[in-house]
């Protein structure tokens, strides 16, 4: 139906499996609908200049629409405006732009909610012990990209800790937090950050991680000192290796997201826009289209809705 | 007569190697002082200590009766000491002209020069060409060649031309004719005498005894890091000088008081 329709997918990076899967989802849908899809990505997390260049390329290329997961949700706005002025449909995926109406539509997970779910689960699992928890916070990067901040603050809120400035992690002074460290979202960084925090306080018993690779690294560090059995690790993402790690008991619970869904919905929307100019509508009651998030664990906790690992496996994306 | 340049008890040590061992030095106004000595005797170190390129571990230096302390070769240069170092001190990738005028470039007259600070390449090139011709370096075909593409002798010629052209209070020449051809060496000797006749004293380090005995007024014999003696070329033969400096013969009992 969409013959000759050009579309662009611009992700933060294309090294993170999350975005790789998003791209695969988009490509599959594009092939199905006959949309001509080109994909772009920043070089590293936070690299919004390459994203700006990618938008400009799409304009030069005469594409009909852009799907973008913005590295810097405000900085990209000028470039997005240029694209929309050139008659393109711009859809923000995964993270809303700032302001949210800078894009024609937003298909996203609620990252804050994702964090909140694991925070609640951890608090419920610990029960009364939650008051004496020793928490390690393994974040993404010192540049504090929005996703990392939302997940971190969501977790703390869910756990029952007051966040100070909701736009920033690391400013809380609750004694239960042993410390924050950065992981770059991979195993190596996860292990080192965990080691650093363990050296600070070897009795840590709750570990929040930005994503599952970081969690796997943290697990290795715990294993090295024989404490892998008595620490609760929680994470966000829901990739297949991550869910498998939940199954193996490496991770206690993880919040699962649905990048494939975001991407395929996005491609459909562009195809529809190219056909008759319809714009996608947001989810009822929200200002964006929520692709949903679910807590995956085999140890459900009271008062927190969750799905089983088997279910999670069915719906995982990497 | 007071020495224009005087040094006492200079010491310079490199790890276990002693390059200057309580060395004294005197240069009198208007004279050509030759410094001779074995390889590694410490001649270059001595003149570097005087010109400011090396800071001695101890010892004192007086210029025109005032004690001086140079922290960089630029200090020495500002005090009026112009030096041709044995290593020549040229920027290999830059052109002959650039090297000759390094640190004292000519600017174009008028607005271009004073406001736009534009260099007067033409003037510098023709000046450089003239100085090289004076030295008989006729084989330099391209005045804008990079110095690294010059032959060994041509390079040395450029360094000598630079020092002579911008001569001031004292000129120091460390083996200026080592790599030069017969004709070019001859010209350098003439140049040295020329400069002396302008009243500027010269320190000449050389291993070429005939040249030394031809132009020097006094000869400072350097051995094992110190001044062994100072001789008058009229009183001694070349053989004597060589014997002193290599240690084959004892120096005259009482070094010339001046």
């Amino acid at each position, binding site marked *: 139906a969409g013959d000759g329709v050009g579309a662009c997918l611009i992700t933060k990076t294309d090294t993170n499996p999350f975005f790789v899967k998003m791209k695969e989802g988009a490509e599959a849908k594009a092939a199905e609908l006959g949309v001509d899809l080109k994909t772009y990505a920043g070089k590293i997390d936070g690299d919004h200049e390459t994203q700006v260049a990618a938008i400009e390329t799409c304009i*030069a290329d005469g594409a009909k629409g852009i799907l973008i997961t913005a590295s810097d949700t405000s900085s990209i706005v000028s470039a997005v405006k240029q694209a929309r002025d050139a008659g393109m449909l711009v859809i923000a995926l995964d993270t809303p732009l700032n302001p949210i109406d800078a894009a024609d539509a937003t298909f996203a997970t609620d990252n804050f909610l994702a964090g909140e779910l694991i925070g609640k689960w951890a608090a419920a699992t610990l029960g009364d012990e939650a008051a004496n928890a020793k928490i390690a916070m393994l974040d993404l990067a010192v540049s504090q990209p929005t996703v990392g901040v939302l997940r971190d603050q969501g977790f703390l809120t869910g756990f029952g800790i007051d966040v100070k400035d909701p736009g920033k992690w690391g400013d809380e002074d609750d004694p239960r937090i042993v410390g924050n460290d950065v992981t770059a979202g991979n195993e190596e960084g996860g292990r080192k950050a965990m080691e650093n925090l363990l050296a600070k306080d070897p009795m840590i018993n709750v570990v929040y991680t930005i994503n599952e690779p970081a969690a796997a690294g943290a697990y290795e560090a715990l294993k090295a000192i024989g404490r892998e059995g008595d620490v609760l690790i929680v994470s966000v993402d829901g990739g297949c290796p991550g869910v498998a790690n939940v199954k193996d008991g490496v991770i206690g619970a993880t919040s699962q997201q649905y990048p494939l869904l975001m991407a395929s919905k996005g491609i459909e929307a562009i195809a529809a826009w190219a056909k008759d100019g319809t714009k996608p509508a947001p989810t009822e009651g929200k200002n964006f289209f929520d692709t949903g998030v679910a807590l995956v664990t085999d140890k459900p906790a009271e008062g927190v809705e969750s799905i089983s690992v088997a279910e999670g496996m069915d719906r995982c994306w990497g | 007569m007071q020495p224009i340049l005087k040094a006492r008890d200079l010491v310079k040590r490199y790890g276990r190697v002693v390059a200057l061992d309580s060395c004294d030095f005197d240069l009198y106004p208007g004279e050509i002082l030759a410094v001779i000595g074995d390889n590694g005797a410490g001649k270059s170190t001595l003149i570097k200590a005087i010109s400011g390129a090396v800071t001695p571990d101890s010892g004192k230096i007086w210029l025109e009766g005032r004690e001086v302390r140079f922290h960089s070769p630029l200090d020495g240069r500002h005090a009026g000491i112009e030096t041709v170092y044995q290593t020549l001190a040229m920027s290999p990738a830059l052109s002959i002209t650039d090297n000759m005028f*390094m640190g004292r470039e000519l600017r174009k007259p008028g607005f271009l020069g004073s406001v736009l600070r534009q260099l007067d390449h033409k003037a510098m090139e023709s000046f450089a060409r003239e100085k090289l011709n004076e030295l008989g370096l006729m084989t330099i075909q391209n005045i804008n060649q990079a110095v690294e593409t010059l032959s060994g002798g041509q390079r040395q010629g450029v360094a000598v031309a630079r020092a002579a052209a911008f001569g001031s209070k004292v000129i120091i020449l460390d083996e200026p004719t080592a790599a030069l051809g017969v004709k070019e060496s001859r010209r350098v000797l003439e140049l040295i005498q020329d400069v002396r006749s302008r009243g500027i004293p010269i320190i000449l380090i050389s291993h070429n005894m005939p040249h030394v005995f031809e132009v020097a007024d006094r000869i400072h014999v350097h051995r094992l890091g110190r001044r062994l003696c100072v001789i008058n070329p009229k009183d001694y033969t070349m053989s004597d000088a060589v014997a002193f400096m290599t240690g084959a013969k004892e120096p005259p009992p009482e070094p010339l008081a001046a």
Partner: protein
Amino acid sequence: MSETQDYEKAAASSPSSVAVFAAHDQGAVKRIQHALHQTPWMVPAIVLAASILVFGLLLGEKFFSPFALTLILQQVQIVGILGAAQSLVILTAGIDLSVGAIMVLSSVVMGLFSFRYGLPTELAVAAGIACGTFCGFINGFLVAVMRLPPFIVTLGMWQIVLATNFLYSANETIRAQEIAEQAPLLQFFGNKIAIGGAIFTYGAIFMVLLVLFLAYVLRQTAWGRHVYAVGDDPEAAELSGVQVKRTLISVYMLSGLICAFAGWALIGRIGSVSPTSGQLGNIESITAVVIGGISLFGGRGSIMGMLFGALIVGVFSLGLRLLGADAQWTYLLIGVLIIAAVTVDQWIRKVSV
């Protein structure tokens, strides 16, 4: 005077004109080769022209339009400006890993002085420029006076400046709309002149003018010659009367100043003030410099070459993207093409003498 020197007299009557050789085969080819050798920036210029041609043939209109070609200019403007700063430092045989960080910090200072403290925009811009220059001064002081290796100094400064930037800005972006309303001067370099389909932003024009200006300064002023001499052989430069320390400090300060301007231009380019920008600034600017034929060992090369180097990368990036290569393939091909560009450069240099 001993008779032994008599033979030297024989040279007295030798000819005294400069040696000349018959110009044997000065054909067109030889002349071109000689020209290539004399003007180091011509080689990257040729590579650039060739790559524009190739992509033009492959992509036709889409690439070979005034719009796309000036788009490249816009996309390389930041790298080009940073590359100018980087070139100066590399010519002194240094390297500046902190250019990107200084740029971002300067832009953040401009933004926060306007918005957090409510100062007049002119003052905020001046503060940002002062901040960049000051960072450059610290680099220069450590390199010239403390004699620390530039790599380490600027590596340290990179981390320090970047961390300061995050701490000071509290990781907050100032949005384009607010800037456009309250402090449009910050977006000055984002203004554009459109001629037909061609769009020239002030930032791109600034980049070109800056490079031309620096090329003039390096070639035509004493200071410029000193920069080359210091990079070539600092000891020789010192011995032949260059104030090495002063020259080095001035170069790093100028580099910081240019980075601050890059920060201002960055606001113009992305509209907003974002503390997460510029993380790749150092590696990209160094790439441009090296593809442009400036030696990392100092003292050799021309800043014009850097501009062509930056444009070569820009042409490849845009061309490959338009050809539809996906991101990883683009990186892979750009890797290949960086090597290829320098191989061609090296080859042309070799056949020319």
